[in-house]
């Protein structure tokens, strides 16, 4: 009797594995194999010189040495992080605020659906199209400069793309506009998942809105916040399309908006799989370390144990 019941459970459990097959196959083909071959490639000298293929010759850690010795990696990693932080801070602040407003039943906001759609819309535009738009808007002879000069705010047009911080700010701003809607929706989902009885209890105890937000909403939102932080960090480290298009691939002024992936992209011009692979592996390690730091800082492990 109990034996046949066990069999049924095993039979039923089998479906779990069957349903996992598509994911596992896709993961192995599109993630696992490329990951391993990238690491493998990073130990070889392998590129094209015109039509001549050089390599693959095994050269050990030479590619890593070249990358780390040039010191450029650090500069580009710094650029990437600066631009990510510049975009992420306003993004999380705005998203928290909007999510708190949307989820607060006391406010009775009208047209929620409309606003939720509108703030998500920038994310639907292709990043390259969006940066082309900004490139044209903010060019020396573009409409923004015409308005600024025309209204007498500026004497002559401001060259947005010739200054380090205006370029970085524009890139950060675009990332912010593109992603705050997405973050808002995620945080909103998290907030709506919090038991309303907690809010009611807090109100009965005489807590004001600020206290409720900091003492109840934020702590209970931690798992979602962590998810948002990590995915945004990974996305941020892979920042490419916006600065690439906005600076025509140059990462100027003086390479201050050159991100790690843009640097990687330069190596792919000559199909330099060796150096490109090494750079990707380093990027993988950096991402891993930073994610771990966020995990620790947010005290996620404690949360899991509970």
């Amino acid at each position, binding site marked *: 009797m109990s034996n046949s019941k066990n069999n049924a459970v095993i039979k039923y459990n089998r479906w779990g594995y069957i349903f996992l097959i598509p994911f596992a196959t896709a993961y192995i083909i599109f993630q696992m194999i490329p990951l391993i071959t990238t690491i493998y490639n990073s130990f070889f000298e392998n590129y094209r010189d015109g039509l*001549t293929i050089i390599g693959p010759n095994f050269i050990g850690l030479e590619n890593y040495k070249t990358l780390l010795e040039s010191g450029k990696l650090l500069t580009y990693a710094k650029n990437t992080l600066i631009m990510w932080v510049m975009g992420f801070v306003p993004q999380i602040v705005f998203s928290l605020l909007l999510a708190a407003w949307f989820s607060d039943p006391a406010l009775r906001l009208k047209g929620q659906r409309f606003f939720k759609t509108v703030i998500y819309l920038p994310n639907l535009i292709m990043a390259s199209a969006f940066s082309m738009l900004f490139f044209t808007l903010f060019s020396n002879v573009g409409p923004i400069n015409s308005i600024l000069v025309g209204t007498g705010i500026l004497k002559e047009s401001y060259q947005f793309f010739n200054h*380090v911080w205006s370029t970085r700010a524009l890139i950060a701003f675009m990332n912010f506009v593109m992603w705050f809607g997405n973050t808002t929706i995620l945080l909103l989902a998290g907030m709506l998942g919090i038991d309303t009885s907690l809010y009611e209890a807090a109100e009965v105890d005489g807590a004001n809105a600020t206290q409720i937000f900091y003492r109840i909403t934020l702590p209970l939102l931690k798992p979602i916040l962590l998810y948002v932080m990590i995915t945004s960090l*990974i*996305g941020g480290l892979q920042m490419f399309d916006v600065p690439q298009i906005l600076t025509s691939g140059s990462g100027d002024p003086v390479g201050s908006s050159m991100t790690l992936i843009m*640097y990687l992209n330069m190596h792919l011009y000559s199909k*330099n799989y060796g*150096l490109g692979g090494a750079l990707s592996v380093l990027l993988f390690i950096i991402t891993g370390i930073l994610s771990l730091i966020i995990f620790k800082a947010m005290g996620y492990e404690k949360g899991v144990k509970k």
Partner: protein
Amino acid sequence: MKRMKVIASLALAATMLFGLVGCGGGADKAASSDSTDSAAATQEVSDEGKVLNIYCWNEEFKNRVTDHYSDYTETGSDLAEDDNGDVAGTVEGKIGDVKVVWHITPSKDNAYQNNLDEALLNQADASDDDKVDLFLVEADYALKYVDTDATMSVEDLGITDEDTKNQYQYTKDVMTDSNGVLKGLSWQGCPAALIYNRDVAKEVLGTEEPDEVQEYVKDWDTYRETAKKMKDAGYYMTATANDSYRVFSNNVTTPWVDADKNIQIDDNIATWVEMSKEMVDAKETTSEAMWEDQWKTGFYPEGKVFNYFGPAWLFNFSMGADDEGSVANSGRWGLCVGPQSFFWGGTWICGATGTDNAGLVGDIMKTMTCDETVLTEIVNDDDDFANNSVVMENFANDESYQSEILGGQNPNKIFCEGVKNIDLSNISSYDQGCNEKFQEAMKNYFDGNASYEEALEQFYDKVEATYPALSH
């Protein structure tokens, strides 16, 4: 954020897959229709391959062949245009019973060369109908192909020195490999000169006559003095500092890369940097990139730009001649030699090693680049500067040949004068990247964001990332 990317990339992968399936189907259909055609057709090139594959980056050469190579007829096209007006796709036509397939990939972001490289590296294994038979190159990267076995010597294609004797020497320099073998030909020359705004010249210099304006720009010192006058009158000398780059870079005495693959900066290039920095600082020009909005402002009177440097194709096709109100449209550009003669652009035809249509490739090359009747037609119909000194001397002395854009001036006199002085012995396979990255890096210096040394360091970094074989 990541999830969105994953979804997006999945969607992209799916569309690519569908694209491939679509292409494959199309080719099959085309091939079967071709075999029925060939049964009916009768032509002399019967022992050769059935498909002639031509790789190119725009429709220019295709249009020339359509108009001037009498045996060619177009049969179908699936070209698509992108936002920049670049076209991509394939066009089919036929010459006798040979099917001609044009594979058009835009040059932007190196797409054309990437596509061509793959095809050429695969040449030995490809079936006869898929082999590259003929492809086009530009001067900046010509050596990359010419100095390898991928290109055929024109002699093997049946073209003799006698056939090419009237072609301009520089067009042959570009296509000569390190062993002195000529590997490609062009139907056009692109000698370039100084294009000036006649109205501005009249206002500031008091004359709009080419010979007299030339006196104000006859060498670089005089050119600088004129720039000062322009600035005082409220005009930019050129729209961007990069305008004059080609004048210097195509008159170098050392190539970008020496035999040991070391990058070297020619004195002439250094002179350009020095002059441009002074001019940008004096606000006589700007540090912006070419082909961008700022550069284009001078096509209109409001842009307040005195001159551009360029060949015939620049004022004929790129300066808004069709636009009401542009300087070109009202015929107010003038042309004079300028401080130094140079060339800019041009397209060369190469025969690919391994082609199964060598006879036809040779015939197209010979007809399009050596036949004086065809070349005369090209000048008359398309305003090209034909690559033949006899034909062009005729046009230079022909009073009836006038350019409306240049206010009735005959540009060929000036171009014929300039083309003799072009020397192109100092090129390398890496010129394209070097030129691009150098201008890009120097912008930082012109803007005052970096010192010359820092900008140079940036240039080396980028070029060495682009071409791993190079060092400095």
